[in-house]
């Protein structure tokens, strides 16, 4: 199982992804965990960012064939599917 770690930034609510001890803004740049123990360790490390009031609600989600398994995570990573001019997808064009 491949997993990724996400959270929302406290100050503006924006979606963040975990990469090597810190956060990046896009799913493409984020770290993929093939090892459950590594994923859990990252989640524990992320809780430190919660304690420091930088992010809220960190959690792991599953990836398959390079895409999140859940539609919810696909939409979070991109932005509203009905407004492709908004959200992270808008920065890609």
């Amino acid at each position, binding site marked *: 199982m491949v997993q990724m770690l996400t959270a*929302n930034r406290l100050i503006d*609510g924006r979606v963040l992804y975990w990469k090597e001890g810190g956060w990046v803004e896009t799913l493409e740049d984020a770290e993929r965990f093939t090892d459950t123990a590594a994923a859990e360790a990252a989640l524990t490390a992320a809780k430190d960012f919660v304690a420091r009031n930088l992010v809220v609600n960190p959690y792991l989600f599953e990836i398959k064939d390079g895409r999140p398994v859940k*539609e919810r995570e696909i939409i979070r990573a991109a932005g509203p*599917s009905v407004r492709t001019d908004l959200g992270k997808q808008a920065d890609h064009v």
Partner: protein
Amino acid sequence: MYRYDEFDARFVRERTEQFRFQVERRLKGELTEDQFKPLRLMNGLYLQLHAYMLRIAVPYGTLSARQFRKLAEIARKYDKGYGHFTTRQNMQFNWPALKDVPDILGELATVEMHCIQTSGNCIRNVTADHFAGAAADEIEDPRPVAELIRQWSSLHPEFSFLPRKFKIAVIAAREDRAALRYHDAAVEIVKNAEGRTGYRVWVGGGMGRTPYLGYVVGDFVEKPDLLGFLEAIMRVYNENGRRDNLFKARIKILAHSLGETEMRERVLREFKEIKAAGYLQVPEAERARIAAYFAPPEFETLTDEPLPTDGDLGRWIANNVAPHKQPGYAIATISLKPIGGVPGDINADQLDGVAQLMDDFGLTEIRASHEQNLVLPHVRQKDLPAVFARLTALGLATPNAGLITDIICCPGLDYCDLANARSIPIAQEIAKRFADLERQEDIGELKIKMSGCINACGHHHAGHIGILGVDKKGVEYYQLLLGGSAAEDASIGEIMGPGFGEHEIVDAVDRVVEAYRKLRQPGERFLDTYRRLGMEPFKNVAYGEQLHAAH
């Protein structure tokens, strides 16, 4: 329209400053998220999929041009240039940053707006008929009563920590445009046999996981007794409501487990006690003071004229304009359901454009309706062509009010953290499928309502056709419900059967509608035909090939 008194203004100012301080403390780390969350929710601030979401209260859906301009300004400055009108006559912004929210609240306060009571287990923003003060069929304007309830409930300490949220609606017409029977409590202004005006009080309606229709607990409550009577209901609820189980905490559960007779008895008993203890009676003078704020604009003496029937203007008038109680005036609905657009969304330029239109035509107020449209309540009939031309230029003249493409739809998985499935794209596809106006007009009144999860923000239980998004092992599915209504003939829709896939649901709706067109008798709406024939004939066609494939 209602103006804040000194007290309201100070209260809102204080709340804004209090929240500014709370946000500062949160950002500095002096409050944890667990401590902060209830505080932000009390100020209408949620965390959604992509960002925070701010819900702004619009009591009884009434707004001024000045407020519209302020919303436009906020949309541009702090958001992404647009906002969303909800089924609770609120407005939501989808992208505010936490650090900016105190400033947004400060801006809102300058036009007497706020986000209080848009969340939490309190008496929420009171809603009213969006045709209030204008409808040809109303007894009196219901908003003064809604305002009275708002003032009474706003700060009532006993009601800030209810078992669960509590929603109240007020209407004064026979035609129910405010989904009365789906509210925790509702007040219907009625006349008794002697011609005296009083209140019929309903209790126990709701949607969500377990939908119920409210029933009458007070047949005729005299005017001065209203708050005492409502207080009796709240006390019965406060004492007996289930605080142990979130899903059973709404008054609908209590009301329907006690049953009508027992509930009535308890409320009456409580009401007697309140009366004996000497209770809050609302003196005539106070009611008159509040009513004065809602005094209608000074109508000119005009006569009704024959309205244009030709062309695009005629179509818009036929579908979007309703009779007014004042001769020479009309009520105009501005549809926020352009074909293929996002139901309820409006951008900053449109907000400004509508504000300008209001100023230019002497329109002092506009309403947000629970159907996620806007209403200009007092338009001179002779101005209709010019108003229509303006709306056309703003992209707001879709002539589909009450038709099949006038779909109520919650944000669903495109924005909402609780969603199971997307709802907006399905609404858009349905609207495109039925875009042909002649077909829409032939189909007539048909209300489609859709939610992205069981919370029912999109009123799916009350749709003539309801659609509920569900998650089936990670895939979006859509359940079809038929036969619901939120009007005076209220009913709860019935689930047809197994859900439809994302690419099947629009075809299913199409087949159901076509079956209606074949089966209807003269004068029957979809709902009438469904009530006459039941689910079977519709179910037989809805699944089409799919059903055969599944067997």
